[in-house]
């Protein structure tokens, strides 16, 4: 009897580590959490839902474009589909994606902090995001908007059908969520770094989040006031952008692109930061030219504010303005190329292994390069007149946004998944997914370069019959792409429960986030770390076998 009690006694206490996940488990503890790691997961669930909405709209569009006639949806429905796809993917998936999910999760850990500077504002940003999302979903369900994601006036403010004001309100509110995130990241990076964590020891992912945040904080308020003015014009006839009331629609385009072009860099810079982390880890090498890669992020952020007019080459803006904007747009290629060359130089003589995150990182480099170089075509005044508003533009920015940012997001998700959940994902399935996404993506969007060059305009649901072959290829690619996206949705959820236990550092990566248990405890570190080394002290001699041993 006594022995039994004695033996039974220690068992229940047996070591379940206290992590941020099991510390408290009520629903309220999630909805009211101020823990940056939990907020990251709230964002992850939310943006996944929005990705499905945006993806569904894209699916219907690609199905419609299988045939030259408008046989699946009417033109009006098609207009609403591409508006939903654009609005949801830009503001409710891409812009929040890496910053709010992986940035929130990793930024404090990477700089050795217990949390971001303002945890309550961090939670508030999620509620603002969801509030904005609710307006957007309401707008979609109650009939949609047919303006395109750009809301050009006077169409949006005067003539468009549908719930433009609700949609603009949604973006307005979600924008303040973005600002809150950006503000938090800036102050956190400045003021919360652990002792010894100097600016030149920051992981490049932190640099990219920091520069992204500066854009978020300075550009988003301009979008807010622009959409507010557009909505006021629609609701009360305030004529700031209305030519019949003395206003100038071009002013709307200037203000809109003053936000929306920097927003492109909001979407790509965090992806570049992720790739810098992945390349170094899976090449087992220090990044080549750390200072240049970091400074390139700053340069992209600064130059990104000066190129908005390249969206308006055919809008009747002055030809001299067009020339200046063209030159400035070419200049963005310099820091972008610095990054690509430095990643390539990092790979050189590295000890490369092809785990799933690395596949995504390599995919990013190739696709981003194609997207970036075709951007130069579009930045050339004369070529842009030819391909403006064609599928060439669509293909170009999808190579950046999907080939770049979504690949980086998925790469990051796989790389830090063991840190987030404490479990490994199934490697071979993940590789299959990565390869189908890469193949599906190229099959979807490469034909669109040709379509655009041949003159197929964007935003039409009918097209000339000679374009059908390329459109069928594109739709076929999209279905492979969709399969590729559904795979991680399935196996990542599965691995949350059944994946192999990962341990604190399955990749033998450097970086402070790998020095804590997986999943991390609520306060990240038992004691505040003291930083003495740079972020990428990899040993090139560490081999694949050693890495495999770390998994076992």
């Amino acid at each position, binding site marked *: 009897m006594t022995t039994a009690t004695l033996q039974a006694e220690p068992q229940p206490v047996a070591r379940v580590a206290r992590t941020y996940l099991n510390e408290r488990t009520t629903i309220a503890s999630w909805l009211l959490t101020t823990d940056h790691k939990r907020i990251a997961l709230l964002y992850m669930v939310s943006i996944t839902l929005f990705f499905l909405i945006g993806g569904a709209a894209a699916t219907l569009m690609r199905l419609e474009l299988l045939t030259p006639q408008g046989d699946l949806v009417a033109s009006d429905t098609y207009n609403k589909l591409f508006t939903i796809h654009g609005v949801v993917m830009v503001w409710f998936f891409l812009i929040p994606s890496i910053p709010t999910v992986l940035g929130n999760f990793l930024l*404090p850990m990477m700089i050795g*902090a*217990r*949390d*971001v*500077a*303002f*945890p309550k*504002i961090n939670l508030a940003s999620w509620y603002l995001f969801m509030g904005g999302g609710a307006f957007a979903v309401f707008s979609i369900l109650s009939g949609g908007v047919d303006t395109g994601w750009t809301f050009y006036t006077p169409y949006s403010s005067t003539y468009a059908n549908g719930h433009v004001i609700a949609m603009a309100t949604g973006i307005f509110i979600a924008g303040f969520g973005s*600002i809150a995130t*950006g*503000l*938090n990241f*800036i*102050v*956190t990076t*400045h*003021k*919360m770094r652990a002792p010894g964590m100097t600016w030149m020891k920051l992981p490049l992912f932190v640099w990219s989040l920091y520069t992204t945040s500066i854009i978020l*904080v*300075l*550009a*988003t*308020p*301009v979008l*807010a*006031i*622009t959409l507010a*003015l557009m909505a*006021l014009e629609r609701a*009360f*006839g*305030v*004529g*700031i952008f209305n030519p019949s*009331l*003395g*206003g*100038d629609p071009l*002013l709307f385009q*200037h*203000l809109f692109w003053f936000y929306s072009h920097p927003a492109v860099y909001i979407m790509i810079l965090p992806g570049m930061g992720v790739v810098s982390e992945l390349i170094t880890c899976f090449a087992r090498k220090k990044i080549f030219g750390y200072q240049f890669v970091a400074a390139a992020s700053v340069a992209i952020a600064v130059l990104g504010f000066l190129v908005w007019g390249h969206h308006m080459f055919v809008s009747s803006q002055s030809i001299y303005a067009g020339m200046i904007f063209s030159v400035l747009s070419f200049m963005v290629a310099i820091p972008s190329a610095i990054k690509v060359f430095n990643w390539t130089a990092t790979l050189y003589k590295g000890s490369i292994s092809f785990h799933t995150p690395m596949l995504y990182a390599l995919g990013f480099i190739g696709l981003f390069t194609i997207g970036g170089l075709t951007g130069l075509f579009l930045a050339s005044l004369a070529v842009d007149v030819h391909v403006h508003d064609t599928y060439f533009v669509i293909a170009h920015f999808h190579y950046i946004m999907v080939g770049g940012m979504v690949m980086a997001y998925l790469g990051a998700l796989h790389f830090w998944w063991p840190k987030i959940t404490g479990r490994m994902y199934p490697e071979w399935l993940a590789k299959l997914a990565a390869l189908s996404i890469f193949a599906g993506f190229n099959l979807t969007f490469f034909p669109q370069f040709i379509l655009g060059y041949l003159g197929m305009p964007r935003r039409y649901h009918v097209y000339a019959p000679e374009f059908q072959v390329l459109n069928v290829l594109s739709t076929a690619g999209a279905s492979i792409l969709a399969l590729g996206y559904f795979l991680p949705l399935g196996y990542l959820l599965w691995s949350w429960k059944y994946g192999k236990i990962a341990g604190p550092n399955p990749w033998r990566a450097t970086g402070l986030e790998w020095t804590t248990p997986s999943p991390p405890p609520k*306060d990240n570190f038992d004691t*505040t770390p003291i930083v003495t080394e740079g972020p990428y002290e990899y040993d090139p001699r560490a081999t694949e076998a050693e890495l495999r041993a770390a998994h076992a």
Partner: protein
Amino acid sequence: MPEIALAPVEHQFENAEQQREAATMGMWVFLATEALFFGGMFLGYTAYRTYYPEAFAEASRHTLVAFGSINTAVLLISSTVMAFAVRAARMNRRGLLSILLLVTASLGTAFLVIKGFEYAREISEGLLPGPKFHIETSDPVHAEMFFYLYWLMTGVHALHVTIGVALIGFFALRAWLFDAFRDHDTPIDLLGLYWHFVDVVWVFLFPLIYLAGRHS
């Protein structure tokens, strides 16, 4: 500086100094976004005034410069009082702090009341853009654009003043009833920054709106 704040340090910070620095920087970043928010409207103003200088000058002469001038004085004085309030908080003078905050809030309220009377006069004179808009100028269409911008910019500014007054009144009560800022003056500091920002926006609005047509 013997008056290092002894506020409760939230768990993410190492010490009170870090907390104070972070909060102050956060406020400055927030004010940067505010500047860009107003910036969109200022850009609109600049663009249209460049296109239609005559119409804007004429329209500007229809504004009620006496109201605007008095309001400028009211707001500048309120900002001065706010600066004293920040000092009082740093010196832990609870009673003085509450009174100075109340004076600031009252001046802010006075600004809003005067602005309200100004708006009422303008509506009765037909200067509210819309179907009833009426103005005796050579270019009424673009004079109306001036008044769109006038109502928008002063309206958004008044909204910021209203938020400021509410916060300052609330902080005055907290200071008076709970001695909330003893050895913890950062919130008052940040409130002061916000209030000065609102003041500075008006300092730009005043000449652009009331004086654009009066120098010649």
